[in-house]
């Protein structure tokens, strides 16, 4: 089936003769996942058109990056995708390091992968909880799963707090390495936490996959065909759920991913259930990577760059590059142009959620209002990253 990719504001089905209703979903809406506005055209309960409006959370991140030094910006970069703060920090410092040809010590590289994978676990916890709440209601079983997931996410945040002192926005990565080393007893805590989360994943699966209602709500809903996935340019779990076997961690290894063994889950159905299955496997694979890191963490320094007294002392030579990392939501890219000064000349983010969101107008029409929230939840957008 050829996909129609002509640019248009509203994707509409043929007019069936019923009276139409325009409904605003968002920007203030319980399932808006932040501030997303979908202008839905309804025929009864069926959505025939969707107009996605974004930009309510725009904070001039890219301009901000031009005004901050390489030392300062990583802790601001975490605010683009505040649910997976470690990811965007990593993309930014990797870009600066690549231009300046700065070597990163092995221990720091392993710590970077450690936090990235823990972050993926925390982010997927939040996704599962909010998605189920979208489908099940804040006053129903969805809230139960949400609170279970938040309970597990808290454990990961506790680990981050031990490591960096912060729970949401970390400032952990810096050009040349990482800012903090593991405190005493961290490895043991970490092992305990991931063991617990791995055990509790079975509980979620029992609660969801054995539940006919869950399958009824997710199976065959919001199908993204392989072709549509490739043409729109979605990435991450969405892409893998549509049958494309692509994961930057394996296919374009960065940091020290080449040192670890992990599986890349692929599903071919492309529906909400497939996206759920992909993410559930990713949970386990992330935990597996964390175990491997804890087993073989090399000794040594955590940063190749000596401490500086003033932020302007860290300079990056002239050059430009694009680095990309596999965040929990997909490819997070950072395009950086340096002009030799202490601040970048230009910086551009490629937000995974932003590109993933572009698929919504193609898959929502034809579904009912209830499915709109299920589909949006399965796409897992974070609007800090969409609007930046």
């Amino acid at each position, binding site marked *: 089936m050829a996909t129609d990719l002509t640019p248009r504001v509203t994707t509409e089905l043929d007019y069936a003769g019923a009276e139409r*209703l325009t*409904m*605003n*979903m968002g920007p203030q*809406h*319980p*399932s808006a996942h932040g501030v997303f506005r979908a202008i839905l055209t*309804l025929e*009864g*309960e069926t959505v025939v058109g969707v107009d996605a409006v974004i930009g309510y959370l725009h904070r001039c991140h890219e301009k901000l990056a031009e005004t901050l030094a390489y030392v300062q910006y990583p802790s601001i970069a975490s605010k683009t995708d505040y649910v997976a703060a470690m990811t965007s920090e990593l993309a930014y410092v990797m870009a600066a390091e690549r231009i300046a040809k700065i070597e990163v010590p092995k221990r720091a590289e392993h710590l970077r992968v450690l936090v990235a994978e823990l972050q993926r676990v925390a982010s997927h916890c939040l996704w599962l909880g909010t998605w*189920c*709440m*979208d*489908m*099940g*209601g*804040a*006053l*129903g*079983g*969805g*809230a*139960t*799963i949400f*609170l*279970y997931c938040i*309970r597990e996410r808290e454990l990961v945040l506790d680990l981050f707090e031990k490591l960096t002192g912060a729970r949401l926005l970390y400032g952990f990565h810096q050009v040349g390495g990482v800012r903090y080393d593991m405190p005493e007893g961290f490895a043991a805590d970490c092992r305990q936490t991931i063991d617990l989360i791995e055990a509790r994943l079975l509980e979620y699966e029992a*609660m969801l996959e054995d*539940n006919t*209602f*869950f399958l*009824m*709500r997710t199976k065959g809903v919001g199908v993204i065909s392989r072709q549509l996935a490739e043409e729109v340019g979605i990435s991450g779990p969405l892409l893998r759920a549509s049958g494309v076997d692509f994961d930057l961690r394996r296919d374009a290894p960065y940091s020290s991913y080449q040192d670890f063994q992990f599986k890349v889950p692929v599903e071919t159905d492309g529906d909400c259930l497939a996206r759920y299955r992909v993410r559930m496997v990713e949970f386990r694979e992330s935990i597996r990577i964390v175990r491997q890191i804890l087993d073989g963490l090399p000794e040594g320094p955590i940063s190749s760059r000596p401490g500086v007294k003033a932020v302007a002392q860290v300079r990056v030579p002239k050059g430009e590059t694009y680095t990309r990392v596999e965040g929990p939501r997909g490819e997070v890219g950072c395009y950086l142009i340096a002009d030799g000064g202490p601040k970048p000349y230009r910086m551009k983010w490629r937000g995974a959620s932003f590109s993933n969101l572009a698929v919504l107008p193609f898959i929502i029409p034809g579904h*009912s*209002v*209830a*499915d*709109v*929230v299920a589909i949006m939840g399965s796409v897992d957008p974070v609007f800090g990253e969409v609007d930046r």
Partner: protein
Amino acid sequence: MTGWPDAALGAVAGVSVLLGVIGLVTYVTLLERKFAARMQSRIGPYRVGPHGLLQPIADAVKLMMKEDVVPRNADRRVFSIAPVVFLIPCILIFATIPFAPGLGVADLNIGILFFLAVSSMEVVGLFMAGWSSNNKYALLSAMRAVNQIISYDLPFLMAALVPVILAGSLKLGEIAAAQDALWFIAYPVLGQLGFIAYIIASVAAENRVPFDILEAESELVAGFRVEYSGMKFALIQLGEYAHVLGTSFLGALLFLGAWAGPGPEWLGPVWFILKALLIFLLITWIRWSFIRIRVDQILQISWKLLWPVSLVLVIATAITVVIRSSTGG
């Protein structure tokens, strides 16, 4: 018994049941919140009074003090009267329920029919609320309400007919008395299936998760009551819980032997309330474990599954009763 005229006795009984129901409904919300909190590894209300026991009162006071907002484009009169229209049938269903032999407002000889007729009238209030709000979310919710409640009243009726046929009476007092020897839930096969059908249909008729598409806060924000605030909101809330409690009482009466239980006779009402709360907790348990299903799926479950199954159940019950009576059983 006394020299009081019947009307005065009726009035006293009516007022005391009304107050009792409102008190019970208020505290049932606390029970549900505590129960849900334990399911979700939380503590639940804890700050107001010991173990949060004064929480419902604090909630009521808060709601009374809230500003009563009426949207500018709403149909003012209908908007204001809708919560009352919704509440009245929800409270009225308690009128026929006997809390002990002879202890009730009016044990009509068509008691169960009255219960079903009145409880399905709540849809009028729902629709008035949804329509008059002049809000698109509320409108969609009102459309869903009419769909769903009509679809689930039939299976609900059928499930309730099983004990009626077994007892051979429409009078709730006699249905309860007929279970002296054997609670109808223990009646082989028919009783259990009837109970399951009753629970499913009543969850749907009460608009609770997984069938709470009227409220559907993740899509329709709060559905038909999205524009309500203050006491009007409280009335709708009260009506919903009264309805849940009413069907719990009816369930306890139809299937769990009403006031039958060990101990002296005056303990009867206590047993009855405990059994009703047990059913309430069952419904709560369902609510906090399932996710919501879609409108079309809800209608499919009703018309393609629940309705034929309950119809077959009623016919099977009737045949069983006829066979047993003809064989002198």
